């Protein structure tokens, strides 16, 4: 997490050496300062606090004791099954990303190239669910899937069918993640696809490429940055998701963020929760920093 201080140090120090007075603060840095200050106090500092807490005495509520590795020892001891939560979260997130890519691609393609003047209205319809709290929407699915709910009741009264409800099983957790994170995959995909010039695709067709070839060798590579952002964003959010497993999964599986929550609330063991958070942050952070290094954001967002 040293990038923030590096950025500030670099931007402040270098111009200062060359032009002592006037360029101490370039307009860009000046404009960036409020956001940087907010993120320093509201993002970097809390993460440092969490890291500090992860080395505190188990079950203590202060960071000002002698540092200890006890919390990490607990997590990595062979008797502890918390690694299962990590595995579940990673598997669920990976499945959700694959399903979302398949589900969203046609819609993104339509928004970028086909829907034309309808695209704005369709976008609005697809964005709106983001503004409804996720637990309200997930609860709607509970009403849909539950025994005597909308699905069960309809099947019973129309066909006399009675099915086992999928509610409170692991697959429905993935279903919930696909549902909640759909816009986060879709819109980066649209950005990516609109980076592909139509002429290039047409040219490929004129030169005799099949539709599949055009997709694989022209569209996909050109649209890749958008797809990568969408995949990364949904993966990261799904790894940290907790509402899906609590509301829809009925705690049939404990995901990692749920373990963290339990440590912070019922168990009253903040240092253990902090250590788990540090591990999760390390996984997520490594992935994000690795991928972001290779993306040119000016190109992705600059397109209209």
């Amino acid at each position: 997490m040293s990038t923030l201080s590096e950025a500030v140090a670099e931007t402040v120090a270098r111009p200062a050496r060359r032009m002592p007075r006037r360029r101490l603060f370039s307009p860009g840095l000046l404009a960036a300062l409020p956001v940087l200050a907010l993120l320093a106090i509201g993002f970097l500092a809390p993460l440092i606090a969490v890291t500090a807490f992860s080395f505190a005495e188990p079950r203590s509520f202060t960071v000002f004791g002698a540092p200890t590795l006890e919390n990490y020892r607990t997590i990595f001891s062979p008797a502890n099954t918390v690694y299962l939560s990590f595995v579940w979260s990673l598997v669920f997130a990976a499945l959700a990303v694959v399903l979302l890519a398949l589900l969203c691609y046609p819609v993104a393609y339509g928004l970028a190239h086909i829907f034309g003047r309808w695209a704005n209205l369709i976008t609005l319809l697809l964005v709106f669910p983001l503004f409804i709290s996720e637990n309200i929407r997930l609860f709607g699915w509970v009403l849909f899937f539950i025994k005597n709910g909308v699905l069960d009741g309809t099947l019973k009264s129309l066909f006399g069918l009675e099915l086992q409800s999928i509610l409170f099983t692991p697959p429905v957790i993935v279903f919930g993640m696909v549902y909640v994170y759909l816009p986060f995959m879709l819109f980066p995909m649209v950005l990516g696809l609109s980076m592909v010039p139509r002429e290039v695709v047409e040219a490929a067709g004129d030169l005799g490429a099949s539709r599949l070839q055009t997709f694989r060798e022209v569209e996909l590579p050109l649209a890749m940055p958008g797809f990568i952002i969408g995949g990364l964003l949904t993966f990261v959010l799904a790894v940290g998701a907790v509402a899906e497993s609590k509301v829809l999964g009925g705690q049939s599986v404990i995901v990692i963020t749920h373990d963290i929550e339990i440590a912070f609330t019922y168990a009253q063991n903040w240092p253990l929760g902090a250590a788990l958070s540090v591990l999760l942050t390390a996984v997520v952070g490594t992935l994000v920093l690795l991928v972001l290094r290779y993306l040119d954001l000016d190109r992705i967002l600059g397109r209209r």
Partner: protein
Amino acid sequence: MGGPGNSRGPSRMGSWIGAWTLLVIVFLYLPVACGVLASLSQSRYFGFPITQWSTRWWQRTVDSIEIGILIQTSVLIALMVTAVSVVLAFMGALAFARYDWRGRKIFQRIVLLPIFFPQAVLGLALLLWFNTLGLPLSWKTAVFAHLVWIVPIATLIISIQVYSFDAALEEAALDLGATRWQVLREVTLPVLGPGIFSGALFAFLLSWGNFPLSLYTTGADSTVPEYLYAKMVAGYTPGVPTLGALTTGGAAVILMLGYVSWIFMRRAQGR
């Protein structure tokens, strides 16, 4: 390669894509519709098909003083978040997309980090941090927590508009003798208006619907999503989907009004 196959192909594909998109939209709204159905049921426990319809849970929800306070808290937080986000994100977007400065690339990545971060973990981290500082938790700490997540998003949204902004306009104004402040007020702000407006709309609505950050940072105060979650876990009544539908309706009205005024703003600019 003209050929009948080629000209028929895309339009058939177009209708498949249209149908698929329609299914996705139905998928997105199906649970919302289930919530509305459940709110109109007379009986305390949900069963489908609904045998007795009633609006009494709507009546109760609208009359409830407790829920009035919840809505007030949620709106207050959302308004504060919007006001601060717009200012910070506008400046941030200039640094993100407009000015060429050393450290811009790093700044762009820093802005993305809170978005690419699990919100529940961010909420807990902020809880720990506030506790370390000895700050009492209330709606004010929740405003700050929302800002950490929403300012970066608003910055991105405004940046997209800033990218399409022609810097020559500002320079022309400067050459004609305008001061920096005049340029900002009379050239930059009006041109970037629609982007700033979209940023504000997103800030308000995302704060209004937020649950994971509010959960750990509001202390004794409570927002609508928090209250609903508590009731879902223990103590379901049809009042739960009713309040859910009510907040959804509120957000829909705001989004519609916002969308219409956004269109007018674009028209006024002659785009």
